[in-house]
């Protein structure tokens, strides 16, 4: 119970820090912080698909693209962001559902290549269908959400708008992973054959893992549309999918707070290291490699390891303990 209280206190402190962080900062810093929140949402989605449900996907950037382009096209046509975004999420959910079908037949590396090919396919469609997507020139001039009394035209209000969307998305994800669905996703990751034998429809839960994860990618894309107000296919290539994968792995796959930490490292660390000038990307790459070698379970895993080191307790494996006793 105490652990739960501490956890909520920590969340409240982090939230307060997220509210205070952009105050008094220049526009660029506010932009970087907003990017962190946007990518945290995309990573949250991939964390559900990969971290909780164990289905590898290298296509999260393509769902950001679908979300971004659907939102952009609709808002350019005069639709409000708040109406365009749910439609973009729906589109991503449906496409994610379809992408989940190969996962019913192929696993592991083969599934990774299927999703990689899908990301490339989306990229090519966006680049070649100029009549709709603007091709390599992309789309620009998308309006930011106007919420009446609260307008998001300036960087700081848009940051707070993004923060509010992130909190809502995180609460929804918390609800999912704590529900029996969350338990089913973890069961799919750990032992799909056993899960099926316990009545779990693993086909349905696999498709849902892809669809929900993709919808989160779409939400991140819808926010990118308003953040940058310019989108082009190169912003959603395979490299970006790998970057989101890195966020999930660095933060700790299958951990609720992992995506926030991971996206923080991937988005914010290069900025923090800029004082090293030309060396910052080298230092960043070395830090990531060292971390993955010594903490393959991610940053969250380091915390768990420290907890075990300082608060270790006796083993429960003894076969002759109460569980083995006879009447």
């Amino acid at each position, binding site marked *: 119970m105490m652990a739960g209280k501490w956890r909520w206190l920590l969340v409240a402190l982090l939230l307060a820090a997220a509210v205070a962080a952009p105050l008094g900062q220049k526009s660029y810093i506010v932009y970087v912080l907003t990017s962190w929140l946007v990518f945290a949402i995309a990573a949250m989605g991939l964390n559900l698909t990969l971290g909780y449900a164990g289905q590898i996907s290298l296509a999260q950037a393509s769902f950001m693209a679908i979300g971004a382009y659907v939102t952009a096209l609709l808002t350019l046509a005069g639709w409000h962001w708040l109406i365009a975004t749910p439609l973009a999420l729906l589109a991503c959910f449906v496409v994610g559902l379809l992408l989940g079908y190969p996962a019913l037949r192929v696993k592991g590396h083969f599934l990774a290549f299927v999703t990689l090919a899908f990301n490339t396919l989306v990229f090519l469609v966006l680049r070649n269908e100029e009549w709709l997507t603007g091709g390599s020139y992309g789309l620009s001039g998308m309006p930011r959400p106007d919420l009446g009394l609260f307008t998001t035209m300036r960087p700081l209000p848009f940051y707070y708008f993004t923060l509010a969307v992130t909190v809502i998305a995180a609460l929804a994800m918390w*609800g*999912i992973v*704590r*529900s*029996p*669905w969350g*338990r*089913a996703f*973890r*069961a799919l990751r*750990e*032992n799909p*054959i*056993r*899960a*099926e*034998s*316990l*009545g*779990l*429809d*693993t086909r*349905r839960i696999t498709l849902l893992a892809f669809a929900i994860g993709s919808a989160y990618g779409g939400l991140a894309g819808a926010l990118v549309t308003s953040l940058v107000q310019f989108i082009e296919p190169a912003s959603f290539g395979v490299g970006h999918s790998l970057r989101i994968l890195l966020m999930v792995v660095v933060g700790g796959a*299958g951990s609720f707070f992992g995506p926030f930490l991971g996206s923080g490292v991937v988005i914010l660390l290069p900025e923090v290291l800029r004082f090293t000038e030309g060396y910052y990307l080298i230092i960043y790459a070395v830090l990531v490699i060292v971390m993955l070698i010594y903490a393959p379970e991610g940053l969250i895993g380091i915390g768990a390891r420290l907890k075990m080191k300082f608060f270790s307790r006796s083993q*429960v*494996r*003894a*076969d*002759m*303990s*109460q*569980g*083995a*006793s*006879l*009447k």
Partner: protein
Amino acid sequence: MTAPVLSVRNIEKRFGGIRAVRGVSFDVHKGEILGLIGPNGSGKSTLFNCILGQLVPNAGEVAVSGRDVSGMRPSDLNKLGVGRTFQQLSVFPRMSVFDNIILAGQEHRGTMSSRLFGAPDAGLTQDAERMIAFFRLTHLRDELAGSLSYGQQKLVDAAMAFMAGPSIVLLDEPAGGVNLTMLAHLKDRLVTYNAEHGTTFVVIEHNMEFVMSLCTRIIVLAEGAVIAEGTPDEIRSNQTVIDAYLGG
């Protein structure tokens, strides 16, 4: 007359040129504890997997309480009241014992939407606590299942198979790798559950002492076919079985 809980008719399974199961038929009635024995390669596990929908047989039919379930998916079969345990350890290692047990029952409660928007425990906490206590795992309730000993994980596996209140449970080598103390405990729990709930068991096992003391009837397989059937005493004194399996 009520239909058998499980009815297997002329099951045939081939892997290329090898006939792993050759026209096996048997019935299992309510409350029975049927043992299925035979040496390695006799087709026991293949037959099990055909019954449980993990393998598609080349011929034959399987019925549960009179309903044809041939080719049915394992999840649908489970919803019809068929539980199972696995030969290899088959818990969810990074989930607590409590979550393992809840998972085993949650798909039998409510709808997809109620499992998303309803209580995280699917209203199963009391049932799960009862099942954990029945297998005397209460002190391990919040431990990760993967951190338990082999025998304890076998108990969790069995508890999961019972959680949804099945009418029949198929146990695949429950005694394999389990120490004698734990084995006695497992047998005690199975016998008690059978007596209290009238649940039917089919047990594949190599441990003859375990099978003979647990089962009410035994079927012996060799090279994919049934070579003997009877009570433990009849099997003990069956010359074919003695010659082929018990080293008599």
